[in-house]
């Protein structure tokens, strides 16, 4: 009996193309997988080299630090730097009192003299002023209202007024407290 081929002849070509396509796809995917594995290997190698470079640099850094710390002059360099930094601050806040007395003399009435003077770097000045009379005491205080005289002095308070024996005469003693500009004694006079 002859074989009967019930299948359509043209239908036999389609599975062939599909299989061939699948085969190509498989080969491509295998290639991709190989590339992925190779890339992974490359990453591992780079990672290892980078870590070695980091370790080498850290060793060199530690060596350089050690050399700097054990350098014989380091102690003196650090000490001198500390001195200079401290000096900068001290010089900025250094007081120049010698200018205060002439400025006080400039604003003082000619008929007045000082029995005592107390000055503090915070800007407080306590004075015992001796003047011939109450009128002179008033004039002494009025001076501090004039702009040309109160540039460095302000806020005058009278603590007491009394009569005192001054040689053979009776004078008026004025105890006052006033403020002077603290920046004035930090400014070096020429």
């Amino acid at each position: 009996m002859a074989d009967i081929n019930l299948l359509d002849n043209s239908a036999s070509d389609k599975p062939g193309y599909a299989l061939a396509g699948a085969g190509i796809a498989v080969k491509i995917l295998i290639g991709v997988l190989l590339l992925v594995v190779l890339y992974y290997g490359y990453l591992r190698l780079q990672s290892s080299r980078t870590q070695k470079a980091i370790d080498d640099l850290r060793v060199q850094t530690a060596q350089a630090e050690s050399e700097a710390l054990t350098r014989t002059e380091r102690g003196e360099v650090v000490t001198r730097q500390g001195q200079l930094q401290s000096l900068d601050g001290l010089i900025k806040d250094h007081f120049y009192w010698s200018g205060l007395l002439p400025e006080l003399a400039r604003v003082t009435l000619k008929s007045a003299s000082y029995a005592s003077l107390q000055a503090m770097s915070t800007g407080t000045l306590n004075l015992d002023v001796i003047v011939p009379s109450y009128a002179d005491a008033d004039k002494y205080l009025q001076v501090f209202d004039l702009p040309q005289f109160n540039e460095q002095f302000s806020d005058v308070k009278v603590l007491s007024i009394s009569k005192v024996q001054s040689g053979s005469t009776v004078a008026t003693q004025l105890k006052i407290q006033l403020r002077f500009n603290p920046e004035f004694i930090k400014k070096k006079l020429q």
Partner: protein
Amino acid sequence: MAVFMNQPHKSAQNSILEIVALIVVIVLVGWFFVKPQMTTLSERKALLVQARTDYQNVEQEKSALAQLSAKLKSSGADITLIDEALPLQNRPTHLEVLLDSLITASGMKIVDMDFQPSEDAEVVAGDKTTLENVYGTNRKLTTTDLALTISGSIEQFRNFLQLVETNGRIVDVTSMDMVNEEGNPVFKIKLKAYSYVP
């Protein structure tokens, strides 16, 4: 015959399975192996940059230290001035000798000079640790307080103040108190001197 009819179908199925399996393997390898390794490499590269920066910084500091050391060796006169302005010792007698000379130079007379130690009196001589290694200890700015009573004229006092202000050592007058008794002024001054000691 039936065998010949089923073979192409099974091969197509196998190929599809292979493709799917390969895709899954590629994705898994990529996710669990390649991605973490990429992250590791990225982190290490950042660490490498940091390590290079740290090394450069240390090298720069080492170079700066070498330059400062050389400059120090050639600045003897300046060092002397610095030591005069801010001494590395805080002996009050050293300060008193200085003030005595300034008072004499201004024409005034000493009535009294009173050193005022802090609550914890500091070592001012015989510190063997510091003597063996002068620059090896950490130092800080310290102050010495002194009360001075001197007599003389206002003009002499002004001269004295100017000498204190322009003197090589930094000494600050923190308060002044003048009492003028029968034309003989007496001045009480509080002073602060500074030193840089361990």
